[in-house]
């Protein structure tokens, strides 16, 4: 059984749960890791505009979804694009690499300029594709994915 530790940090006076991930399988991505806020309210793993810049994602090369093209997140409107056939790598507690194949990852493209630093979010499609159980214990300040 693999257990993937998640980082917990202060998040607007409460606890926010973050996952470090490495995206591969797409040409010309900058080989850097990013962080996503675990958000079971999000249907998708969705990359923020800032993380798109970090990863050097060329949004013109992405495909359009057949549904849910317009997305609102934290009051900001985005166009959703898809980066297809992606492999996401994460580390388990024994520092072994766990790879999750996803048919696509959503990429949030701003429809107008915004100063907001919205995080990438790790949503339900990632939990489903990884076949994970999500554990969160507020009292112990502990969170992890397990499978």
């Amino acid at each position, binding site marked *: 059984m693999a257990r993937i*530790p998640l*980082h*917990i*940090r*202060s998040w*607007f*006076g409460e606890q926010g749960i*973050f996952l*470090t991930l*490495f995206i*591969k399988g797409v040409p010309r991505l*900058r*080989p*850097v*890791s*990013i*962080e996503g*806020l675990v*958000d079971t*309210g*999000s249907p998708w793993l969705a990359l*923020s505009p*800032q*993380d798109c*810049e*970090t990863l050097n994602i060329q949004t013109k090369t992405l495909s359009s979804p057949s549904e849910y093209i317009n997305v609102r*997140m*934290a009051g900001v409107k985005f166009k959703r694009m898809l980066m297809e056939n992606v492999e996401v*790598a*994460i*580390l388990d507690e024994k*520092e072994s*690499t766990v790879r999750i194949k996803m048919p696509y990852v959503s990429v949030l493209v701003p429809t107008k300029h915004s*100063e*907001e*630093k*919205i*995080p990438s*979010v790790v949503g339900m499609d990632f939990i489903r594709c990884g076949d994970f159980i999500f554990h969160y214990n507020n009292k112990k300040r502990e969170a992890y994915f397990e499978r």
Partner: protein
Amino acid sequence: MSEKEILLKANGNGKQISTKWDEIAEQYAGKVIAVENGKVIGDAKTSSELIKILEEEKKDLSSISIISVPQTNVAYIL
């Protein structure tokens, strides 16, 4: 640097900055920060600006975590 090495570095960075996040969030509100070995080594308004600075300094980006810090005057309900 291998994918595993990148993830190990990033996990270390994430773990270390999580312990002092309140301080970082206050100091760098609304900015993008670069974290190496658990320490903030740079900041800018956007990821692109920060990456440009880091590349000019000939930093190895694969060992650095680039993290967005929310503004302090607004909370995000996602």
